[in-house]
């Protein structure tokens, strides 16, 4: 009886803690969004953080990322085009490959790339700042860490993810044209017709919102996970681990939700 009660208490406590963590994350996200749309946030200090965040998240990885995205896109498009041709469905090859690569694969790939690189870094940095009491110190001197440290990173991260997604998607569209029609400009009207069919307002909006949500998640969740870590050094890896797993689930949730929205 006692064991059962303890078991139930533990379950309940775990569930509450889990819910509270998600609740705090949502509250934090809402605050960050509010800050984002507060003009007072944008001063030279925050701008510098935003620029640096974009520089580290997007600019530094741009050549390697674009090369990787181009390779992956081209391979996927070629597989789809060849398979479609084998089954006598060439007319659907372009549409299928663009839907698979541009609408689904590349946004997900971008956010995973940024999450592994910058998300993990932000998570660790915030966790260490928290453990070293730097955040409390900032608060003590009257600097709002939310406004001067976190919100600029969220903005920079979101812009970076959006920029990387857009650039890789446009590169993939060009590669898709080349893969399907070859190096010649006369099939542009056919291509335009397929693009017009795919990029309905709904699809366009879904892609944009999804990309922005990915950008928000990839910075918000690591920051929140870093802040939640108990102020002991050995909790830093655990904080990073929790943050990354949570980030992965959120990314997948956004992806599945967007798919459900477009295709159901």
């Amino acid at each position, binding site marked *: 009886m006692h064991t059962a009660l303890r078991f139930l208490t533990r379950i309940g406590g775990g569930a509450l803690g889990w819910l509270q963590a998600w609740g705090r994350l949502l509250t934090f996200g809402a605050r960050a969004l509010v800050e984002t749309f507060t003009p007072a946030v944008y001063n030279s200090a925050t701008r510098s953080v935003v*620029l640096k965040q974009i520089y580290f998240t997007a600019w530094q990885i741009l050549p390697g990322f674009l090369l990787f995205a181009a390779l992956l896109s081209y391979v996927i498009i070629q597989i789809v085009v060849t398979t479609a041709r084998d089954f006598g469905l060439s007319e659907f090859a372009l549409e299928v490959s663009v839907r698979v690569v541009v609408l689904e694969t590349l946004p997900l790939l971008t956010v995973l790339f940024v999450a592994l690189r910058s998300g993990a870094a932000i998570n660790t940095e915030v966790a260490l700042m928290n453990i070293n009491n730097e955040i409390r110190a900032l608060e003590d001197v009257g600097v709002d860490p939310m406004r001067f440290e976190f919100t600029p990173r969220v903005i920079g991260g979101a812009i970076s993810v959006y*920029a990387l997604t857009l650039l890789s998607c*446009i590169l993939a569209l060009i590669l898709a044209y080349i893969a399907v029609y070859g190096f010649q400009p006369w099939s542009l009207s056919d291509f335009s017709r397929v693009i017009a069919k795919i990029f309905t307002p709904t699809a366009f909006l879904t892609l944009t919102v999804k990309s922005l949500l990915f950008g928000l998640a990839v910075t918000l969740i690591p920051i929140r996970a870093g802040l939640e870590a108990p102020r002991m050094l050995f909790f830093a890896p655990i904080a990073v681990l929790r943050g990354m797993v949570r980030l992965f689930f959120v990314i997948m949730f956004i992806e599945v939700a967007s798919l459900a929205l477009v295709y159901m």
Partner: protein
Amino acid sequence: MERAPVRAPLIKNLELKVGLLLATTGVLALAFIVYVLYARGTFQPTQDLILLANNAEGVTIGMPLTFSGFPIGQVKRLDLTEDGRVRIHIAVPEKDARWLRTSSQFTLEKGLVGGARIRAFSAVLSDPPLPDGAERELITGDATEDIPVIMARVKAILSNVEAMTAADSSINRALAHVDTVTGRMTGDYGVLEGVLGGPDKARKVVEALDRANTLLTSLNGISLRVDQTLAKADQRVFGSGGVMDQTDRSLAQVNAILTEVRESLKRADAILLAAQGAADNVNAITADVKGATTDLTILRVEVDDSIRKVNHLINEINRKWPFRRDVELKLP
């Protein structure tokens, strides 16, 4: 936050680089939006075409209207009329509207694979162009609708084929018979054996033919001999020195004999006349009776002799003319 100013100088042209990235992203995003809008025909003036169909299954918004395989329009809206028919609104760019004429036909085709297709056919391109907002009937043809009918027929055909190919089917039996016959044909007597059903019967036929040949050969000999016989008969009957010749000669002799007989009879007449004259004067004659009776005896001998000769001659003719009764010569 004190680290920011320390790190800043380490990044060269930070603002320029980020600005470049953001500007490129922004320009590309805008260009892409404009391109998609252009591709969706936002900047193209279009005219409306309304197609009426009983069933718009498979028709989706954004579906192309094709002419000769080229998309010239797009489905913009679908709605139902008061009488339950479907109105398909199609936007046709004005530059492509010239392919649609008043005589154009529109079909909705559903294949086995892929979506439905709306196709336009303009047979006479010199007809007046289709006006804006024109309403036309959509002719629907569905390949899948025919499948059950085709399947039923195929099943019937297959069962027939099955019956035909079964082990005891008539075709198989006929083929077996053909096999037997052709097998026989490869025997010693060829086709004859195939037709007659066995080497024994074929051999009999061949033998019969051989015998007939022999018979014909002997008949040939016989007819040759008959010919010779007839020639000989001809020779004998009609040739020189033949029966006819001899007959002719005999007849000539008969004539001569008959002349003699006549003369003898004349002399007899004369004698009888003399006797007549003598009878009147018996007395006168009695002296001459002796001489007269002597003459009579001689005469009688002569007459007898003549008659005997005639008789003999006729007998001889009878002997020499075997076909006296049947004058005609009957040929076999």
